[in-house]
Protein backbone atom coordinates (compact mmCIF):
# COMPACT_ATOMS: atom_id res chain seq x y z
CA UNK A 1 0.00 0.00 0.00
CA UNK A 2 1.39 3.39 -0.91
CA UNK A 3 1.74 6.13 1.65
CA UNK A 4 -1.23 8.43 2.11
CA UNK A 5 -0.03 11.56 0.34
CA UNK A 6 -3.30 12.92 -1.00
CA UNK A 7 -6.07 15.09 0.40
CA UNK A 8 -8.82 13.46 2.43
CA UNK A 9 -11.45 13.99 -0.23
CA UNK A 10 -9.43 11.91 -2.68
CA UNK A 11 -9.48 8.85 -0.36
CA UNK A 12 -12.61 7.23 -1.85
CA UNK A 13 -11.25 7.68 -5.35
CA UNK A 14 -7.87 6.25 -4.33
CA UNK A 15 -9.70 3.27 -2.83
CA UNK A 16 -11.63 2.75 -6.05
CA UNK A 17 -8.46 3.05 -8.11
CA UNK A 18 -6.93 0.30 -5.96
CA UNK A 19 -9.96 -1.87 -6.63
CA UNK A 20 -9.74 -1.52 -10.40
CA UNK A 21 -9.54 -5.02 -11.84
CA UNK A 22 -6.75 -6.25 -14.04
CA UNK A 23 -7.76 -7.12 -17.56
CA UNK A 24 -6.35 -10.07 -19.47
CA UNK A 25 -5.07 -10.29 -23.00
CA UNK A 26 -6.60 -12.94 -25.22
CA UNK A 27 -5.85 -16.65 -24.89
CA UNK A 28 -2.54 -17.70 -26.40
CA UNK A 29 -0.88 -14.35 -25.66
CA UNK A 30 2.14 -16.02 -24.03
CA UNK A 31 2.54 -18.45 -26.93
CA UNK A 32 2.49 -15.62 -29.43
CA UNK A 33 5.15 -13.74 -27.47
CA UNK A 34 7.29 -16.86 -27.00
CA UNK A 35 7.15 -17.58 -30.73
CA UNK A 36 8.82 -14.22 -31.34
CA UNK A 37 11.68 -14.62 -28.86
CA UNK A 38 14.85 -14.99 -30.92
CA UNK A 39 16.75 -17.06 -28.37
CA UNK A 40 13.96 -19.62 -28.07
CA UNK A 41 13.16 -19.67 -31.79
CA UNK A 42 16.26 -19.08 -33.88
CA UNK A 43 14.00 -19.04 -36.93
CA UNK A 44 11.97 -16.16 -35.40
CA UNK A 45 14.62 -13.77 -36.65
CA UNK A 46 14.15 -14.99 -40.22
CA UNK A 47 11.27 -13.14 -41.74
CA UNK A 48 9.00 -14.72 -44.34
CA UNK A 49 10.02 -14.21 -47.95
CA UNK A 50 7.84 -11.18 -48.57
CA UNK A 51 8.83 -9.56 -45.30
CA UNK A 52 12.51 -10.30 -45.84
CA UNK A 53 12.53 -8.60 -49.19
CA UNK A 54 10.89 -5.60 -47.56
CA UNK A 55 13.56 -5.51 -44.86
CA UNK A 56 16.32 -5.75 -47.44
CA UNK A 57 14.85 -2.84 -49.29
CA UNK A 58 14.37 -0.87 -46.10
CA UNK A 59 17.66 -1.56 -44.36
CA UNK A 60 20.13 -3.99 -45.88
CA UNK A 61 19.93 -2.70 -49.41
CA UNK A 62 20.37 0.88 -48.31
CA UNK A 63 23.29 0.07 -46.05
CA UNK A 64 25.14 -2.26 -48.41
CA UNK A 65 24.83 -0.38 -51.69
CA UNK A 66 25.51 3.31 -51.97
CA UNK A 67 22.71 5.23 -53.55
CA UNK A 68 23.43 6.27 -57.10
CA UNK A 69 23.12 9.95 -57.99
CA UNK A 70 19.99 9.14 -59.92
CA UNK A 71 18.40 12.55 -59.35
CA UNK A 72 19.90 14.35 -62.35
CA UNK A 73 19.37 11.43 -64.71
CA UNK A 74 15.78 11.13 -63.54
CA UNK A 75 15.12 14.85 -64.01
CA UNK A 76 16.67 14.89 -67.49
CA UNK A 77 14.80 11.75 -68.49
CA UNK A 78 11.54 13.14 -67.18
CA UNK A 79 12.09 16.45 -68.96
CA UNK A 80 12.91 14.78 -72.29
CA UNK A 81 9.97 12.43 -72.01
CA UNK A 82 7.72 15.32 -71.02
CA UNK A 83 8.79 17.52 -73.90
CA UNK A 84 8.47 14.62 -76.32
CA UNK A 85 4.99 13.80 -75.07
CA UNK A 86 3.86 17.43 -75.20
CA UNK A 87 5.26 17.80 -78.72
CA UNK A 88 3.64 14.60 -79.91
CA UNK A 89 0.36 15.61 -78.33
CA UNK A 90 0.62 19.06 -79.87
CA UNK A 91 1.27 17.64 -83.31
CA UNK A 92 -1.40 15.00 -82.96
CA UNK A 93 -4.25 16.97 -81.51
CA UNK A 94 -3.77 20.68 -81.82
CA UNK A 95 -0.78 22.16 -83.27
CA UNK A 96 0.44 20.45 -86.34
CA UNK A 97 -1.07 23.06 -88.59
CA UNK A 98 -0.60 25.82 -86.07
CA UNK A 99 3.08 25.03 -85.40
CA UNK A 100 3.83 24.62 -89.07
CA UNK A 101 2.06 27.85 -89.82
CA UNK A 102 3.96 29.73 -87.12
CA UNK A 103 7.36 28.35 -88.19
CA UNK A 104 6.66 28.88 -91.87
CA UNK A 105 5.45 32.41 -91.27
CA UNK A 106 8.51 33.17 -89.12
CA UNK A 107 10.90 31.74 -91.68
CA UNK A 108 9.34 33.47 -94.66
CA UNK A 109 8.97 36.76 -92.79
CA UNK A 110 12.46 37.00 -91.33
CA UNK A 111 14.64 34.77 -93.54
CA UNK A 112 15.83 37.65 -95.68
CA UNK A 113 16.46 39.87 -92.66
CA UNK A 114 18.42 37.12 -90.86
CA UNK A 115 20.49 36.39 -93.99
CA UNK A 116 21.27 40.06 -94.55
CA UNK A 117 22.24 40.68 -90.90
CA UNK A 118 24.44 37.53 -90.89
CA UNK A 119 26.18 38.57 -94.13
CA UNK A 120 26.85 42.07 -92.79
CA UNK A 121 28.21 40.71 -89.49
CA UNK A 122 30.34 38.17 -91.35
CA UNK A 123 31.71 40.84 -93.67
CA UNK A 124 32.74 43.02 -90.71
CA UNK A 125 34.45 40.11 -88.90
CA UNK A 126 35.82 38.01 -91.77
CA UNK A 127 35.95 40.48 -94.63
CA UNK A 128 33.88 40.71 -97.81
CA UNK A 129 36.09 38.32 -99.83
CA UNK A 130 35.84 35.57 -97.29
CA UNK A 131 32.07 35.90 -97.18
CA UNK A 132 31.99 35.73 -100.95
CA UNK A 133 33.95 32.45 -100.83
CA UNK A 134 31.59 31.03 -98.26
CA UNK A 135 28.51 32.04 -100.17
CA UNK A 136 29.96 30.54 -103.35
CA UNK A 137 30.11 27.08 -101.68
CA UNK A 138 33.46 26.24 -103.29
CA UNK A 139 36.07 23.71 -102.04
CA UNK A 140 38.08 26.61 -100.65
CA UNK A 141 35.13 27.54 -98.49
CA UNK A 142 35.16 24.11 -96.87
CA UNK A 143 38.85 24.52 -96.06
CA UNK A 144 38.10 27.97 -94.73
CA UNK A 145 35.38 26.56 -92.46
CA UNK A 146 37.83 23.98 -91.10
CA UNK A 147 40.53 26.62 -90.60
CA UNK A 148 38.08 28.82 -88.75
CA UNK A 149 37.01 25.96 -86.51
CA UNK A 150 40.61 24.93 -85.75
CA UNK A 151 41.50 28.56 -85.08
CA UNK A 152 38.53 28.96 -82.79
CA UNK A 153 39.35 25.89 -80.70
CA UNK A 154 43.08 26.64 -80.78
CA UNK A 155 42.50 30.20 -79.61
CA UNK A 156 40.23 29.04 -76.81
CA UNK A 157 42.79 26.45 -75.67
CA UNK A 158 45.54 29.06 -75.80
CA UNK A 159 43.57 31.47 -73.65
CA UNK A 160 42.82 28.73 -71.09
CA UNK A 161 46.49 27.74 -70.94
CA UNK A 162 47.64 31.32 -70.53
CA UNK A 163 45.08 31.84 -67.76
CA UNK A 164 46.18 28.76 -65.83
CA UNK A 165 49.87 29.72 -66.16
CA UNK A 166 49.09 33.22 -64.91
CA UNK A 167 47.12 31.78 -61.98
CA UNK A 168 49.97 29.43 -61.04
CA UNK A 169 52.48 32.28 -61.13
CA UNK A 170 50.25 34.47 -59.00
CA UNK A 171 49.97 31.70 -56.42
Amino acid at each position, binding site marked *: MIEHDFPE*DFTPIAAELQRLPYMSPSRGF*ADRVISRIDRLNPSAGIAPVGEKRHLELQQGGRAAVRRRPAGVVRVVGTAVAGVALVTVAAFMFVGVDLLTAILAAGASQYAMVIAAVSAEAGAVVLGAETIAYLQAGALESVLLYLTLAVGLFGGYAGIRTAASIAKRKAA
Partner: protein
Amino acid sequence: MPAKSYTDVSDQQVVVFAQEGREDAYRELIKRYERPVYSLIYRMVRDNETAEDLSQETFIKVLNNIDRYRPEFKFSSWLFKIANNITIDHLRRRQLDTISIEGAPDAVTGERIRATAITVASGGESPLEELESKEIGASIEEAIAKLRPEYRACIILRHVEDYSYDEIAEIVKLPLGTVKTYIHRARQELREHLEDLK
Protein backbone atom coordinates in the same frame (compact mmCIF):
# COMPACT_ATOMS: atom_id res chain seq x y z
CA MET B 1 15.05 -29.13 -19.41
CA PRO B 2 12.39 -30.08 -16.80
CA ALA B 3 9.85 -27.37 -15.97
CA LYS B 4 10.73 -25.54 -12.79
CA SER B 5 8.39 -24.18 -10.15
CA TYR B 6 8.90 -20.45 -9.76
CA THR B 7 6.51 -20.03 -6.85
CA ASP B 8 8.79 -18.28 -4.40
CA VAL B 9 11.35 -17.10 -6.85
CA SER B 10 11.99 -13.37 -7.20
CA ASP B 11 11.72 -11.60 -10.53
CA GLN B 12 15.48 -11.12 -10.62
CA GLN B 13 16.07 -14.83 -10.22
CA VAL B 14 13.52 -15.70 -12.88
CA VAL B 15 15.30 -13.27 -15.19
CA VAL B 16 18.58 -15.10 -14.54
CA PHE B 17 16.94 -18.36 -15.61
CA ALA B 18 15.55 -16.64 -18.68
CA GLN B 19 19.02 -15.35 -19.50
CA GLU B 20 20.15 -18.97 -19.42
CA GLY B 21 17.60 -19.66 -22.16
CA ARG B 22 14.94 -21.44 -20.12
CA GLU B 23 11.58 -21.13 -21.85
CA ASP B 24 9.65 -21.75 -18.64
CA ALA B 25 11.35 -18.67 -17.13
CA TYR B 26 10.21 -16.55 -20.05
CA ARG B 27 6.70 -17.91 -19.62
CA GLU B 28 6.80 -17.16 -15.90
CA LEU B 29 7.70 -13.52 -16.55
CA ILE B 30 4.86 -13.24 -19.05
CA LYS B 31 2.47 -14.91 -16.61
CA ARG B 32 3.41 -12.52 -13.80
CA TYR B 33 3.05 -9.34 -15.79
CA GLU B 34 0.77 -9.88 -18.78
CA ARG B 35 -2.30 -8.63 -16.91
CA PRO B 36 -0.74 -5.53 -15.27
CA VAL B 37 0.97 -4.54 -18.52
CA TYR B 38 -2.10 -5.21 -20.63
CA SER B 39 -4.32 -3.30 -18.15
CA LEU B 40 -2.02 -0.27 -18.10
CA ILE B 41 -1.83 -0.19 -21.89
CA TYR B 42 -5.54 -0.83 -22.32
CA ARG B 43 -6.43 2.02 -19.96
CA MET B 44 -4.23 4.29 -22.02
CA VAL B 45 -5.36 3.29 -25.52
CA ARG B 46 -8.89 1.97 -24.82
CA ASP B 47 -8.83 -0.56 -27.60
CA ASN B 48 -8.54 -4.32 -27.06
CA GLU B 49 -6.74 -5.09 -30.25
CA THR B 50 -4.29 -2.21 -29.94
CA ALA B 51 -3.65 -2.99 -26.27
CA GLU B 52 -2.91 -6.59 -27.16
CA ASP B 53 -0.56 -5.61 -29.98
CA LEU B 54 1.28 -3.09 -27.81
CA SER B 55 1.50 -5.54 -24.90
CA GLN B 56 2.91 -8.16 -27.23
CA GLU B 57 5.41 -5.64 -28.61
CA THR B 58 6.41 -4.75 -25.05
CA PHE B 59 7.08 -8.32 -23.99
CA ILE B 60 8.88 -9.19 -27.22
CA LYS B 61 11.13 -6.16 -26.83
CA VAL B 62 11.86 -6.82 -23.16
CA LEU B 63 12.39 -10.56 -23.48
CA ASN B 64 14.53 -10.26 -26.58
CA ASN B 65 16.75 -7.86 -24.64
CA ILE B 66 16.69 -9.78 -21.39
CA ASP B 67 20.51 -9.90 -21.32
CA ARG B 68 20.54 -6.12 -21.01
CA TYR B 69 18.44 -6.13 -17.85
CA ARG B 70 20.28 -4.57 -14.92
CA PRO B 71 19.37 -6.29 -11.65
CA GLU B 72 19.79 -3.11 -9.57
CA PHE B 73 16.41 -2.02 -10.96
CA LYS B 74 13.06 -3.72 -10.47
CA PHE B 75 12.20 -5.89 -13.44
CA SER B 76 8.63 -4.62 -13.33
CA SER B 77 9.86 -1.00 -13.54
CA TRP B 78 11.87 -1.82 -16.64
CA LEU B 79 8.90 -3.64 -18.15
CA PHE B 80 6.48 -0.78 -17.42
CA LYS B 81 8.99 1.69 -18.76
CA ILE B 82 9.09 -0.11 -22.11
CA ALA B 83 5.30 -0.49 -22.06
CA ASN B 84 4.84 3.21 -21.36
CA ASN B 85 7.29 4.24 -24.10
CA ILE B 86 5.63 2.02 -26.66
CA THR B 87 2.16 3.22 -25.69
CA ILE B 88 3.05 6.91 -25.64
CA ASP B 89 4.72 6.54 -29.04
CA HIS B 90 1.57 4.89 -30.34
CA LEU B 91 -0.68 7.59 -28.91
CA ARG B 92 1.50 10.32 -30.39
CA ARG B 93 1.21 8.65 -33.75
CA ARG B 94 -2.52 8.17 -33.45
CA GLN B 95 -3.33 11.39 -31.57
CA LEU B 96 -5.87 9.50 -29.49
CA ASP B 97 -6.15 11.96 -26.64
CA THR B 98 -9.80 12.04 -25.83
CA ILE B 99 -11.68 8.81 -25.55
CA SER B 100 -15.04 7.81 -24.24
CA ILE B 101 -16.26 4.97 -22.05
CA GLU B 102 -18.68 4.15 -24.87
CA GLY B 103 -15.83 3.18 -27.15
CA ALA B 104 -12.83 4.62 -28.92
CA PRO B 105 -13.52 7.74 -31.02
CA ASP B 106 -12.63 6.00 -34.26
CA ALA B 107 -15.10 3.20 -33.56
CA VAL B 108 -17.76 3.40 -36.24
CA THR B 109 -19.35 -0.02 -36.43
CA GLY B 110 -21.31 -1.59 -33.58
CA GLU B 111 -18.76 -4.37 -33.29
CA ARG B 112 -15.91 -1.89 -33.03
CA ILE B 113 -17.77 0.18 -30.41
CA ARG B 114 -18.36 -2.94 -28.32
CA ALA B 115 -14.72 -3.95 -28.72
CA THR B 116 -13.47 -0.59 -27.48
CA ALA B 117 -16.01 -0.05 -24.72
CA ILE B 118 -14.83 -0.67 -21.19
CA THR B 119 -16.33 -3.58 -19.30
CA VAL B 120 -15.65 -3.79 -15.61
CA ALA B 121 -15.24 -7.23 -14.07
CA SER B 122 -17.15 -8.10 -10.92
CA GLY B 123 -15.55 -9.54 -7.78
CA GLY B 124 -18.09 -12.03 -6.48
CA GLU B 125 -20.44 -9.52 -4.85
CA SER B 126 -24.23 -9.58 -4.52
CA PRO B 127 -26.14 -8.47 -7.64
CA LEU B 128 -26.78 -5.01 -6.13
CA GLU B 129 -23.20 -4.58 -4.94
CA GLU B 130 -22.01 -5.89 -8.25
CA LEU B 131 -24.12 -3.33 -10.08
CA GLU B 132 -22.87 -0.51 -7.84
CA SER B 133 -19.31 -1.71 -8.15
CA LYS B 134 -19.63 -1.88 -11.90
CA GLU B 135 -21.06 1.62 -12.01
CA ILE B 136 -18.31 3.03 -9.82
CA GLY B 137 -15.64 1.13 -11.72
CA ALA B 138 -17.04 2.36 -15.02
CA SER B 139 -17.08 5.93 -13.70
CA ILE B 140 -13.45 5.61 -12.61
CA GLU B 141 -12.46 4.14 -15.95
CA GLU B 142 -14.30 6.92 -17.73
CA ALA B 143 -12.61 9.56 -15.59
CA ILE B 144 -9.19 8.01 -16.26
CA ALA B 145 -9.95 7.91 -19.97
CA LYS B 146 -10.57 11.66 -19.92
CA LEU B 147 -7.11 12.39 -18.55
CA ARG B 148 -4.16 13.24 -20.74
CA PRO B 149 -2.17 10.06 -21.59
CA GLU B 150 0.80 11.25 -19.51
CA TYR B 151 -1.46 11.79 -16.50
CA ARG B 152 -3.11 8.43 -17.08
CA ALA B 153 0.20 6.56 -16.95
CA CYS B 154 1.30 8.37 -13.80
CA ILE B 155 -1.95 7.99 -11.89
CA ILE B 156 -2.26 4.29 -12.79
CA LEU B 157 1.32 3.58 -11.83
CA ARG B 158 0.81 5.45 -8.57
CA HIS B 159 -2.60 4.25 -7.45
CA VAL B 160 -3.07 0.93 -9.26
CA GLU B 161 0.50 -0.38 -9.34
CA ASP B 162 1.66 1.26 -6.09
CA TYR B 163 4.87 2.72 -7.46
CA SER B 164 6.71 5.50 -5.64
CA TYR B 165 7.14 8.90 -7.26
CA ASP B 166 10.82 8.16 -7.90
CA GLU B 167 10.00 4.89 -9.61
CA ILE B 168 7.32 6.54 -11.72
CA ALA B 169 9.76 9.27 -12.74
CA GLU B 170 12.19 6.55 -13.81
CA ILE B 171 9.49 4.65 -15.71
CA VAL B 172 8.02 7.59 -17.59
CA LYS B 173 11.40 9.29 -18.05
CA LEU B 174 10.25 12.58 -16.56
CA PRO B 175 11.68 14.73 -13.76
CA LEU B 176 10.37 13.95 -10.29
CA GLY B 177 8.75 17.39 -10.01
CA THR B 178 6.88 16.88 -13.28
CA VAL B 179 5.61 13.51 -12.12
CA LYS B 180 4.35 15.03 -8.87
CA THR B 181 2.64 17.80 -10.80
CA TYR B 182 1.04 15.33 -13.20
CA ILE B 183 -0.27 13.19 -10.37
CA HIS B 184 -1.54 16.23 -8.49
CA ARG B 185 -3.38 17.48 -11.58
CA ALA B 186 -4.65 14.02 -12.42
CA ARG B 187 -6.13 13.74 -8.92
CA GLN B 188 -7.75 17.12 -9.28
CA GLU B 189 -9.27 16.18 -12.60
CA LEU B 190 -10.43 12.81 -11.28
CA ARG B 191 -12.06 14.59 -8.33
CA GLU B 192 -13.87 16.92 -10.71
CA HIS B 193 -15.03 14.04 -12.90
CA LEU B 194 -16.11 11.96 -9.91
CA GLU B 195 -17.96 14.49 -7.76
CA ASP B 196 -20.53 11.87 -6.75
CA LEU B 197 -17.97 9.54 -5.24
CA LYS B 198 -16.78 12.00 -2.62
